[in-house]
């Protein structure tokens, strides 16, 4: 397959997947952000209630944090009628320090929407998405999930009426956090993965849901006309009373009203 073809397939897949998931993507983004914002207070509460000593606090938090995020995200999604499963059965064989810390978050959540499977995963290393999905490691299930490239060919070979029979490409929501804890979400479609190697059709940043909110207020909506009653007064007398009405060296005002500025 030529590089140009490959590019076209990626672009088409991107459109399809973004469109399929358009109803749930904002919910997932907000769920992750919300979980991230309440986690520190949750951890404080746990440490306080369980009377965990200071020296263990960091270790406990590092272990609990990914699990808590996953659980809170799952709860928020459920309250928005988006059902997901926590992925627990896929063990990663390589248990070095990095993987050990990230095992729970990287196993993430799994769901299905618009007949398409998706997973919500934390980026492998903070601030290091760099167009790379977390590798599947030795997990056969994970490798299978990542293996998408044959589907495209199958779908292309079939007639339109049969196309629904072929499973759709699996997708991945990949989230990452900045040093200040801000959430950034990407939507990706894996092509292939084994061990520490991985490739994707695309990894595309998701726009923050706020930027998609429709403007609810039009400038016309705030235009209410102020009513004013006009009096029959000669404006010239007000503007230049001293020049208009000088008689015998005295200033008078024909309107009979006090000079406005004398009040002050």
């Amino acid at each position, binding site marked *: 397959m030529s590089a140009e073809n490959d590019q076209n397939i990626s672009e088409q897949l991107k459109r399809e997947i973004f469109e399929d998931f358009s109803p749930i993507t*904002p919910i997932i983004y*907000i769920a992750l*952000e*919300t979980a*991230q*914002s*309440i986690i*520190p*207070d949750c951890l404080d509460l746990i440490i306080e209630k369980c009377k965990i000593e200071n020296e263990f606090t960091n270790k406990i938090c590092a272990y609990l944090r990914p699990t808590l995020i996953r659980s809170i995200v799952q709860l*928020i999604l459920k309250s928005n009628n988006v059902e997901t499963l926590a992925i627990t059965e896929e063990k990663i064989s390589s248990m070095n320090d990095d993987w050990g810390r990230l095992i729970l978050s990287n196993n993430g959540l799994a769901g299905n929407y618009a007949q398409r499977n998706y997973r919500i995963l934390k980026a492998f290393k903070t601030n290091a998405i760099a167009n790379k999905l977390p590798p599947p490691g030795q997990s056969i299930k994970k490798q299978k999930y990542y293996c998408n490239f044959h589907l495209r060919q199958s779908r292309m070979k079939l007639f339109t009426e049969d196309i629904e029979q072929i499973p759709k490409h699996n997708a991945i929501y990949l989230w990452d956090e*900045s040093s*200040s*804890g*801000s*959430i950034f979400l990407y939507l990706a479609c894996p092509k292939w993965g084994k061990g520490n190697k991985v490739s994707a059709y695309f990894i595309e940043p998701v726009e*923050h*849901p*706020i*930027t*998609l*909110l*429709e*403007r*609810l*207020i*039009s*400038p016309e*909506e*705030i*235009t*209410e*006309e*102020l009513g*004013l*009653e*006009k*009096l029959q*007064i000669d*404006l010239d007398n*007000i*503007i230049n009373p*001293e020049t208009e009405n000088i008689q015998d060296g005295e200033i008078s005002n024909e*309107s009979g*009203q*006090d000079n*406005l*500025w004398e*009040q*002050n």
Partner: protein
Amino acid sequence: MSQGRIIYGSRIEQARKLTGLTQRELAEKVGVNQSAIAFYEKEKTTPSEDIVKGIAEATGFLPAFFERIPIDGFSKGSLSYRAYKSVTAKEEDKAYLNAKLLYEHLGIMAKSFVLPKLQLPIIRERPETSAEITRAALGVSPDVPINNLTYLLEKNGIIILPLPVFLRKIDAFSTWIYLQDDKRPLIAESFGKSGDRIRFSIAHEVGHLVMHNPPKSSIKSMEKEANDFASAFLMPKSIMRNEFTQPVNLFSIAELKLKWRVSMQALIFRAKTLRIITDRQATYLFSQMSARGWRIKEPNNLNIPVEKPQLFRKLIEGLYDSPEKYASDMGMSDTRGAGVALLV
């Protein structure tokens, strides 16, 4: 020019400062030396007719303007509370002079109209209570957003004058004036900013007018009280507790922004003040906004329309066929003076 004419030095100074000229710059334009201008302004000497014409040309006013009796009684009001902010004395002076000029025009034109009855309480209560009482006095229910704050205030007799856009560093200031024999509150507002910021600035000034008449305590504490008043006035405590649904996140705050027409940052502060979110949650929400540049400029799709004051424009429209006629009646050679260009 008629005999016995008086050229008021303070008018020359007013026109010069409104145009942003130094005495030396004006002197160069007119073809005299700087000390001559200083003498005219102090009324130690009277400029000749030609020089008055030169000054008029250089400043955009008509010669007749310099013969008008200068007005008094326009205090700086809350403008003087801003001394600690990053506003230069020159900018502050310019804002004051622009507002004073419009006040002068207002005083002339308002004589031909019945202005809305004033409904603004003077209260010595805490900001939260003052805001509740003020909403009630203005006829606004405690559980609804104020859709058009500028209109609401004008309808209730508060004068709102627009400052020129280039004075955007001065958000707003307020003072009490005499108009049609009555003491009235006036807010001068710079409109070159986002709609939600303008609304908050105006509400802040309402706080000063309601609670700080006469001024009390330190400038810093009055400013804080005015901010607290603005928050409570635009986002009443009783309803906000229901409006912020848990868990609070940026998206729900953005939706509330569109409903209550205040900035997302003001909403986060309010949620924090009312203990709806913890300090840490507020910090996190602010850092999320910072990471996306939304603390400097909130997303465009959430822009709140700018509410334009109507009273001043309606006075002009009610009395004049064209902006040019208005300008010439007020002693200006065009409509560029003060914030008038914004209105006509």
